[in-house]
């Protein structure tokens, strides 16, 4: 595992974007050789997406030979709803780049047979040759969104952060595949603010890739920023593998990079932080020099 620690959110996003850019260019994607990227949603990767779009607009990076697979999508939400993950990906990423629409895969939460949709998705990943680089943020129930609902629902107080990937909530099997998941109550409460505060409008189910699906990726990069994620990061890397903290599964992945900012390391041992900060000169070799497609790569 690499733990890359940057000073703040912007620098962490930039590092991650540079890494992705370099990986794609070094791969030399072409007509018969597509680079497969696993992509997340949420607020954490927004900075990274902006940077990737910037590299594309400046001509350094093209997504023409890149295939993408998103991690999850709500069930029953119209595709063009502003809160759907299709809308998120379109507005924050796809519309700004030159990806072929046929290569952008997102689970369809309105499919007639949801399990068949999940199985088909797994198959598509396989047909694409597996995922080369999977980017994910850490979902954390105790983030700022939840805070204001605490006073209404006393039974969720004290649950604490749980650090999971996509919608693989605590208790998800560490070898799970793409499947239908019912969302936990506090996830629904946390999302209510995006649906005019009306709980009846919030989706209660979602399709998500499994922990096992993510583990199959050749390389995994996890973005963790903010003090509210610090405890989850601690559990992810300094404690053992545990299905209550599904992100800890990556301790058994051959190539994982955790990219975080200073605040996310607040619950780690000083020893751990110092150790990985000491390796930053090695980590930075992965992003410097920043390659560009203009150089005829």
């Amino acid at each position: 595992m690499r733990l890359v620690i940057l000073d703040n959110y912007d620098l962490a996003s930039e590092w991650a974007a540079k890494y992705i850019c370099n990986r794609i260019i070094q791969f030399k994607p072409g007509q018969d050789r597509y680079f497969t990227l696993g992509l997340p949603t949420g607020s954490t990767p927004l900075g990274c997406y902006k940077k990737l779009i910037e590299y594309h607009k400046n001509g350094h990076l093209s997504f023409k030979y890149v295939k993408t697979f998103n991690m999850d999508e709500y069930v029953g939400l119209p595709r063009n709803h502003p809160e759907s993950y299709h809308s998120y990906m379109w507005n924050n990423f796809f519309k700004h780049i030159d990806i072929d629409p046929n290569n952008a895969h997102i689970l369809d939460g309105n499919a007639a047979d949801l399990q068949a949709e999940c199985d088909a998705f797994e198959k598509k990943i396989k047909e694409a040759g597996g995922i080369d680089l999977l980017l994910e943020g850490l979902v954390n129930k105790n983030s700022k969104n939840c805070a204001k609902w605490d006073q209404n629902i006393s039974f969720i107080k004290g649950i604490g952060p749980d650090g999971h990937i996509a919608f693989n909530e605590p208790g998800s099997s560490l070898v799970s595949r793409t499947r239908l998941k019912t969302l936990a109550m506090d996830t629904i409460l946390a999302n209510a603010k995006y649906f005019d505060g009306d709980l009846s409008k919030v989706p209660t189910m979602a399709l998500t890739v499994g922990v096992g699906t993510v583990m199959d990726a050749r390389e995994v990069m996890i973005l963790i920023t903010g003090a509210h994620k610090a405890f989850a990061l601690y559990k992810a890397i300094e404690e053992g593998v545990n299905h209550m903290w599904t992100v800890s599964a990556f301790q058994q992945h051959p190539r994982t990079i955790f990219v975080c900012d200073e605040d996310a390391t607040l619950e780690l041992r000083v020893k751990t932080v110092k150790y990985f900060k000491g390796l930053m000169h090695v980590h930075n070799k992965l992003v410097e020099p920043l390659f560009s497609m203009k150089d005829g790569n």
Partner: protein
Amino acid sequence: MRGGQGAAEARVLQFTNCRILRGGKLLREDLWVRGGRILDPEKLFFEERRVADERRDCGGRILAPGFIDVQINGGFGVDFSQATEDVGSGVSLVARRILSHGVTSFCPTLVTSPPEVYHKVVPQIPVKSGGPHGAGVLGLHLEGPFISREKRGAHPEAHLRSFEANAFQDLLATYGPLDNVRIVTLAPELGHSHEVIRELTTRGICVSLGHSVADLRAAEDAVWSGATFITHLFNAMLPFHHRDPGIVGLLTSDRLPAGRCIFYGMIADGTHTNPAALRIAHRAHPQGLVLVTDAIPALGLGNGRHTLGQQEVEVDGLTAYVAGERPHPLGPRSQPACQVAHDPPDGSIAPMDVCVRHFLQATGCSVESALEAASLHPAQLLGLEKSKGTLDFGADADFVVLDDSLHVQATYISGGGASGALLALRIATVGSDIRDWCSPRSGVVVLTFSPFGFWGGWPPSPLLTGAVLGTGGVCLALPLFSSLCCKAQLRKCLQVQSDRMVRASPVGREQPGKNHLPRRAL
């Protein structure tokens, strides 16, 4: 309009590097067009899995819905109220020429005329979609003859009418069949007007109050009967009075049907309405403001005498007066004409884009508000806001490309075209602003019309011009040289305008020599 299959195969155009007016805001978004309609790119991406066939870089400019002019009496020498043999070609000429002002739809307006004129002219101006041939005709606006004698303005007294006992039949007898009619302006204080208003409203015709001495009560009753518009607010109606605001009071009346928005036309050319009055109206009721030109046949022509219905008018600068009835508006050049402020002008020759710019400058409103006043609001008035006056998905692709000071750079209009694949004709123009033409720049202005939507630049490149000519386009090159006499003459014209602006303002004691013109507004 077009079959679904054909539309799906049509080329997809993506306009990038632009700011589009959508949802009342200028958004940094691309505009996608297919088959003459605004396209939802997200749907195209996820459902059809397609990308754009062609991208056009808009250079950071503003893309706004095409302007809609619901009151225009003619232009370029054409008078809609003249019963000529070939009314159609006159309308077509105007329709084509106003495209360069950013107007993509309009309501040809007929002033008070004898019944013979209506019977001859009205059937010859059908509702027609816009296209490469010109702006779309949304329907006729019949202003008069059922209006007030005292507030007739330039309308000929001899042909005014009031409603007899069988009011609506009287109206039908005057106008003839109403199939091509979209708006009727009348004075609600006339007897039997309410049954007429109700009948017109049930037929889907918009009733507008104007050229009237109605008090506020009468105006409110008219709105209850179905009236939805006010013709050129302030002009040809009783002035605002604090105990009886008259028709003007409709803007803030609380006695109107719930949820009903009263729209009102304003001629923002700097002469018909004092900018302070324009601001009062805008601040009182911004959502109802509809910019109109009320342009007369002299629009687009120089100074001189032109017809307006049964009258003759004299044009000087940006104003016009009924010929022979009033003293020459200037008087001796050295003397300011003090009576000008109190004599209402008889028609306007300010093009729509000039009105938009003046409106923006005079009210200090946002660019979005100014653009909506010329596009969305007239569309809402006519109940067309789903397809016109908007850049929402599914709307007709009628839009205008503007620079930051709202000068028209190009006009796109969705057109049929024999092949069905024609999306839009682009007409390049170099603004219709008097100041532009007065500029001491010398050079060549290229107005390029081409079925391939080619751009003619300023200054043009020979290669571009050659390519356009080669593709069968028509290219008109107009040399603009900074000759002394030309500049002096134009400067005088500007000076006159400056005088007019100064006189019109209530504080107007400034010296004519100082330049009080708004920045690049007129």
